[in-house]
C-alpha cells in the first residue's frame, strides 16, 4: 500500500496528538473533570484512528460505547464520589518510591516494546479488507465466534446485575 501522502500524515499526526495528548491529560491534569474530558478526547482520537484504518464499524462502536457509556458512567462515579475542591482532585500518590518506580517501570517497558516493535519485520499482506465491513463482521461473528458472542451477552448481564447487587441496594438502605 504505497507511500503515505502528506494528507494522511497530517491526519495521523493530529489523531496521534489527540490520543497521546488525551492520555497524558488523563494522567497529568489536576482536575478530575478535565481528566475525564481528556479521556473523551483520547477516545475520539482512537475512533479516528479506526477510521483511518478503514474500521468504520469499530470507530462508531468506539464512540457509542466508550464515550456514550463508559465515559458517562465514570462521570457519574466522579460526581458521586466528589469531595474537596475539584482543582486538586486528581493527584499522584504521595509515596515517592511508588512514583519513581512506577515511572521507570512504565518507561522501561515502553522503551523495550518500542525498540522491539521497530526492529521487528511484519509480513504485510497488501490486500484490502472486505468492502461492506459490517456485514462481513456480522457473518464472521455468527459463523466463527457464536460462543464469545453469547458469552459477551452473559458477561454484560453479569456486570449489570452485579453492579446492582454491589451498589444499588446500598443506596436503598442508606
Amino acid at each position: 500500500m504505497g507511500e503515505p501522502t502528506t494528507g494522511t500524515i497530517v491526519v495521523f499526526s493530529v489523531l496521534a496528538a489527540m490520543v497521546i495528548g488525551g492520555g497524558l491529560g488523563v494522567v497529568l491534569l489536576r482536575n478530575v473533570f478535565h481528566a475525564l474530558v481528556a479521556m473523551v478526547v483520547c477516545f475520539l482520537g482512537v475512533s479516528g484512528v479506526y477510521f483511518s484504518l478503514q474500521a468504520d464499524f469499530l470507530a462508531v462502536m468506539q464512540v457509542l460505547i466508550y464515550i456514550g457509556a463508559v465515559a458517562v458512567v465514570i462521570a457519574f462515579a466522579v460526581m458521586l464520589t466528589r469531595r474537596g475542591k475539584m482543582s486538586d482532585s486528581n493527584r499522584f500518590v504521595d509515596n515517592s518510591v511508588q512514583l519513581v518506580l512506577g515511572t521507570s517501570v512504565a518507561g522501561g517497558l515502553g522503551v523495550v516494546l518500542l525498540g522491539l516493535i521497530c526492529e521487528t519485520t511484519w509480513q504485510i499482506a497488501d490486500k484490502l479488507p472486505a468492502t461492506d465491513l459490517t456485514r462481513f463482521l456480522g457473518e464472521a461473528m455468527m459463523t466463527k465466534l457464536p460462543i464469545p458472542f453469547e458469552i459477551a451477552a452473559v458477561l454484560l448481564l453479569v456486570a449489570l446485575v452485579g453492579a446492582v447487587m454491589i451498589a444499588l441496594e446500598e443506596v436503598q438502605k442508606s
Partner: protein
Amino acid sequence: MMDLSCYLGLSTLLFIVGLFGALTKRSAVVVLMCIELMLNAVNINLVAFSRFLDPGQLLGHLFVIFTIAVAAAEVAVGIALVIVLNRYRDTINLDDFTWLKG
C-alpha cells in the same frame, strides 16, 4: 497510508501512558480510566494488525468488539465497588484501602 509500526508505536505509547497513570494515580476512578486507556491501546494494536496482516479474516476487528464490551462491563462493576467503598470509607484514594495486608 501510514505504515504499521506508526500505529503500533502510537498504541504502545498510549499503553505506557495508561500504565504510568495506573501505577501512580491516587484516585481509584482515575486508575480505572487509565486501564481503559490501556485497553484502547491494545485495540489499536489489534485493529492495525488485522488491517495490515489479515484483511481476509479481520479477526482483530472481532477481537476488538469483545474487548470493548468487556471493558464496559469491567468499568460498570469497578465503579460500583468504588462507590460502595466511598460510602464506607469516605474516600476513593487507593492508598487508603489498606485494611487487608500482610
